[in-house]
């Protein structure tokens, strides 16, 4: 802190501290606290209340109809009845607007068997996407960092980055078009005679989780490639040559020299890819269109916007967050890297 003040002066240092604090509070602490708070209470009986209110509104409409349609009715009596009901409604609505909050852990404990299955499956799928991405990205990162000439490396990097100039949704739609029933891949298979689109004989790629995996690996490839590339770039090429010169075959050079060196990058890449795929909503939504099971992110979405139950939604979201944090620590343990290595 003193060093900062000496280098930048009081004003700038104050600004730095203020901005950092504002960022931490505004972007991390408050939203998370809000979500955690949400997840810890339930609204008592609110559905019953609204049902009651709905019924009373129905009664009013019925009475109004009566008042108009029946000629020999006691109009003042009906009006009186209506105003009484309206009073009752106002009372109930006031009650509905200030619902009774009951703090409880039930949002966490109440997860249904189906939702739990979806949750576990999502974690497993996200882990599989992470492994797939690692298998795909390590050779790419190695090639760009160590093998390619500077020009070729620049070209490869550009090739990796250019798709990211396009919105993620459009990139996913591109894969949808490739894997769709009458998509590019099935059409190409028709040329070889494997499928027949006219007779509806196609391979339903989209109905398998593999379609989501492919799109996800593609969508998040850079988050895996860049951290690995960054660490591999700092690997002294002489070490690879020394290993080769000492008689090591290629796989051993990677296993003993390159991969240990790239471990922090691999850990960061795995963490990022896992978090992104475990929390991805758009990719499974677009790719499966309901033809194969939900991912947990979709279940959370349904809790918020279809069941209109923000409390359970918040609890689900927080559970996912906790699992992701556990995953981070697990990765750090497996790769034996510290927070410092990751932050580098």
């Amino acid at each position: 802190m003193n060093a900062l003040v000496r280098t930048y002066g009081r004003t700038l240092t104050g600004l730095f501290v203020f901005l950092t604090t504002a960022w931490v509070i505004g972007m991390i602490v408050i939203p998370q606290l809000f979500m955690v708070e949400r997840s810890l209470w339930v609204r008592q009986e609110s559905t019953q209340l609204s049902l009651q209110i709905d019924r009373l509104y129905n009664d009013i409409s019925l009475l109004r109809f009566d008042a108009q349609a029946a000629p020999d009715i006691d109009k003042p009596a009906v009006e009186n009845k209506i105003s009484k009901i309206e009073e009752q409604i106002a009372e109930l609505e006031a009650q509905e607007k200030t619902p009774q909050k009951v703090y409880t852990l039930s949002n966490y404990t109440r997860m249904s068997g189906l939702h739990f299955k979806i949750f576990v499956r999502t974690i497993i799928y996200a882990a599989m996407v992470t492994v797939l991405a690692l298998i795909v990205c390590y050779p790419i990162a190695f090639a760009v960092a160590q093998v390619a000439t500077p020009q070729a490396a620049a070209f490869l990097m550009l090739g990796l980055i250019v798709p990211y100039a396009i919105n993620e949704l459009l990139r996913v739609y591109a894969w949808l078009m490739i894997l769709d029933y009458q998509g590019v891949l099935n059409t190409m298979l028709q040329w070889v005679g494997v499928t027949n689109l006219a007779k509806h004989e196609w391979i339903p790629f989209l109905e398998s989780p593999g379609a989501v995996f492919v799109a996800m690996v593609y969508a998040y490839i850079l988050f895996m490639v860049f951290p690995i590339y960054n660490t591999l770039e700092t690997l002294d090429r002489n070490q690879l040559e020394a290993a080769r010169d000492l008689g090591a075959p290629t796989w051993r050079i990677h296993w003993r020299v390159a991969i240990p060196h790239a471990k922090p990058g691999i850990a960061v890449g795995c963490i990022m890819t896992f978090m992104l795929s475990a929390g991805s909503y758009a990719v499974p939504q677009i790719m499966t269109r309901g033809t194969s099971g939900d991912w947990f992110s979709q279940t959370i979405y349904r809790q918020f916007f279809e069941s209109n139950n923000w409390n359970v939604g918040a609890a689900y979201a927080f559970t996912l967050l906790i699992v992701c944090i556990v995953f981070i620590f697990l990765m750090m343990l497996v790769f034996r890297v510290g927070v410092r290595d990751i932050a580098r």
Partner: protein
Amino acid sequence: MIAKGKNVVLDGVSMVFGDFTAVQETDLEIRAGEFFSILGPSGCGKTTILRMISGFLEPTTGRVLIGGDDMAGIGPNRRPTALIFQNLALFPLMPVWENVAFGLEARGVSKSKRRERAMELIDLVALRGQEEKLPGDLSGGQRQRVAIARALAVEPAVLLLDEPLSALDLKLRQHMRAELKDIQRKTGVTFIYITHDQGEALTMSDRIAVMNQGRVEQVDTTDVLYDDPATPFVATFVGEQNVFRGKVAEVADGFAVIEGPDGSLRGRNRSSLARGAEAMVFVRPERMQFLNGAALDNVVSANVDRRDLEGPFVNLFLKRDDNEIMVHLTNSGAAGRDLEGEQRIGFAATDALVLPAGELARD
């Protein structure tokens, strides 16, 4: 204990990268079990030759033979060579003993055997007790020894060293020279040592090849190289030289007389120059002396410019027009301190070498 060294033959080897010729067609034989240095300024192609011998580069033309076997198409992992890199390239995440044992690991030797053999080598390079440390925790000299042990572990017939001492400080470097020479003698492995430091090459080598701009200018034993350089480049790259220019005026009995701005100078005519040829006369600073009545074949007068005390000897610099003349004096007590103004210095014709005029090494 370790397989005897093998000889290395470069047969018409050249290396071209695009339109740049790194190594011109070269024939070279390095004898089995010898300490051979390739000496030259940076960019002269010496590292390229080393990489062709180790197998990281395939020569554009010619053949590399090790122990009589053609190495064409054989990768660096299957050649009987081991390379010590300029920056050593130790594996920073492996402890010392695993570094040393890496070559054996690659050959599928069991862990206990590996460890045993690694410990033998660690003893050889006097690192006992450091085997569990990481290379980063060792001193420069210790790291150097790890690199040597790691290279020797695969029992190479030829050890290739790419300026491995250049990162060390002077004292350590001198110590390691002796140690390298000692290890070479003990193991009998052929050492091919790449360096731009002529002092290093002279102290350690049996023979030296001097390279310049992709061409081997001379291959000889250290003494011959020092006393009888074949070209002006070799003459000035190895050690210090005084250079006088002129034209050959007279030739007789293996000697030539050169007429130039510094007068008429006589020296050995090793390259049989004919009269009228452009020539250079080279004289080592330690072969020059101030004339105190002594009669010498050649005499030059020059003005004392400055005196550098090196300790055991003194460098005196004298100016004669554009030419700087350097004289080494043995320091037998304030040597040359009182010399001032114009002085006459001389040297014997047998200590002067006449060579055809050519490119000099840049300082």
